[in-house]
């Protein structure tokens, strides 16, 4: 049997940072030494339409797309996008909904994507150094502190 691949689907509306979050996870897994593939469709998504992005990592990843019903995690940034995307989750897969992190506690509403990554990180086996390096590489320097704070907040939200 091939080694298991970790499958994470990100979903949200255009402009909310779902794709950015998926980029950060893909980069963190890459930094941790895994084979990684990421697939997304971002055609008209700028105009507030639905977006999803698949990240898969493990010893060897073949297809870049997560087969329906095989996601280990589903990270959703927009409440209205939960139900359409739920069929992506496998039985026993974990949903990380937008209210997984209390909005009021966020340093900034726009950092919800990174906060939810924190909540995801608490359940994955990737070292913090890789996450933080990926966050820094993906965002301009003036946003580093704020997003690192959001990441820690998200991570701390998981008991």
């Amino acid at each position, binding site marked *: 049997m*091939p080694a298991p691949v970790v499958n994470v689907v990100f*979903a949200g*509306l*255009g402009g909310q940072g779902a794709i950015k979050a998926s*980029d950060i996870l*893909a*980069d963190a897994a*890459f930094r941790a030494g895994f*084979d*990684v*593939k*990421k*697939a*997304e*469709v*971002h*055609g*008209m*998504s*700028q*105009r*507030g*339409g*639905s977006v*999803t992005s698949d990240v898969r990592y493990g010893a060897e*990843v*073949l*297809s*870049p*797309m997560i*087969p*329906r019903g095989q996601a280990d995690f589903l990270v959703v940034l927009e409440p*209205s*996008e939960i139900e*359409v*995307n739920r*069929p992506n989750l496998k039985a026993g897969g974990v949903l990380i909904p937008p209210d997984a992190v209390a909005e009021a506690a966020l340093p900034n509403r726009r950092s919800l994507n990174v906060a939810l990554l924190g909540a995801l990180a608490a359940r994955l086996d990737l070292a913090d150094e890789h996450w933080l390096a990926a966050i820094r590489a993906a965002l301009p320097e003036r946003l580093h502190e704020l997003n690192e704070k959001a990441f820690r907040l998200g991570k701390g939200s998981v008991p």
Partner: protein
Amino acid sequence: MERRLLSGDEAVAAAALDAGVHLGTGYPGTPSTEILEAFDALGGRAQWAPNEKVALEVGLGAAFGGARALVTMKHVGVNVAADPLFTAAYTGVSGGLVVVAADDPGMASSQNEQDSRRYAVAAGLPCLEPSDSQEAYDLLLAAFELSGRWQLPVLFRMTTRVCHGKSIVTRRAPVTPAAPAFRRDIPGRVMIPAYARPAHVRLRQKLKALSAFADGSPLNVWREGSAALGVIATGVAARHAREAAPHAALLELKTIHPLPLEKLRAFAASVDRCVVVEEGDPIVAEACLAAGIRVEGKGEPFRFGELDVERVRRILTRDDGPEAPLPRGKPPQLCEACPYHPVYATLRKLDCIVAGDIGCYTLGVLPPYQGMDTCVAMGASLGVGLGLRHVLPEADARRVVSLIGDSTFVHTGLNGLVEMIYNPPATGHVLIVLDNGTTAMTGQQEHPGTGRRLDHQATTRLSIEGLARALGVPNVDVVDPVADPAGFEALLSDRLARRQLSVIVSRRPCILAAADIRGYERQNAASAAACAACKEG
């Protein structure tokens, strides 16, 4: 060597840099747009052309001059560039020319799902297709080698998943190709019939040699597996196939044209059952069957949309039954503060018949406006609007308006404007150019009307209103529909009532691009001032 996580588009840009490409040109189009942007960011010389035909011609000229040129476009762009493409197969090139055609099976952001591989067959061009970012990198290098060796343009087919998917890429040491130089070759480059006839024969000879090359090429990967099932797969579908049928024998095809027919024959003969898995049209399957190679193609339902692991599994088990519909999320919409809102509100109020075009503004077709009656191809709004004006009863003809974006106007609307003044309808006509100062749809690229090049540096600005006046259009106006919606409505009603030709330039920047545009303008003004000061001093 350096390993990085790159999208297919970024991998192509990196390969272009490492192949020593002298010039990259193209026209934006999802999913190909990011290639030239990334090439520019890496320090390559990249520029946007007004449309794909011009881009290809610029690339061809560079390659005639001995340079390596990369030309990028989406699949429908190849239709625009098709005229020079076919004859460029006859002339061939001296340096290297690779044309990226990015297909969009499933139409994530396109008006059709045509299969660019057909162009390779029709024009007689070598065609390669990668399945992920590493292959996009490796095969682009191979494409330049092929182009140089056979002196032919190479068509490089990509698809949305490969362009926008990310995977790990290891780069190779860069090469420095020969420096551009002019070498006169009149019979090879001037396609009058006397020279074109032998050129066609030469092309067919090259393709024969290329077909032998494909048969021996290590680019096509033969993976041993069970003798019960063999899969021939192309592009990203090869990745799906390995996951869907890990035990099957697999032939991953990268040389799509000419096909390695003898290798395909041997592969098919080595298994009990052989299935071809490809996105788009059943091109490889048909070619195999025509050559007497015993393969099965995919079922008809799989001609539509993208493939994935589940769909490949169905192809392999010959399951053509109904599929679970894809989840439909929220469709994209015009941004809340988009400058197009007052335009559509007015068109609706005045009950116009709108011959539309392609861009962000096409979203005006959705409720609440339902403000577009036709949308076919870039630039078509003019011709279609004129055709309607010519034949409709007068009362309806006078309601017809052509509606086009600024980038689309420069792309191919210009030709339609010439038609408008040459064959004006009896009722006149009204063209509205939605000038939002950018190519918004594809992610805010510059175009000749913005007065800035791909890298946002200043260049000569094409004046849309100046052009319309120069062509002799009697009524040319520029309005800001957001600042003065009542003025816009009054103007449009007046122009619709005249039996004359009118062009209305509706000018207001895209709300998402406005801040960046101001930034570029400031920067360019500052460097112009510095430049002037330097000249004075």
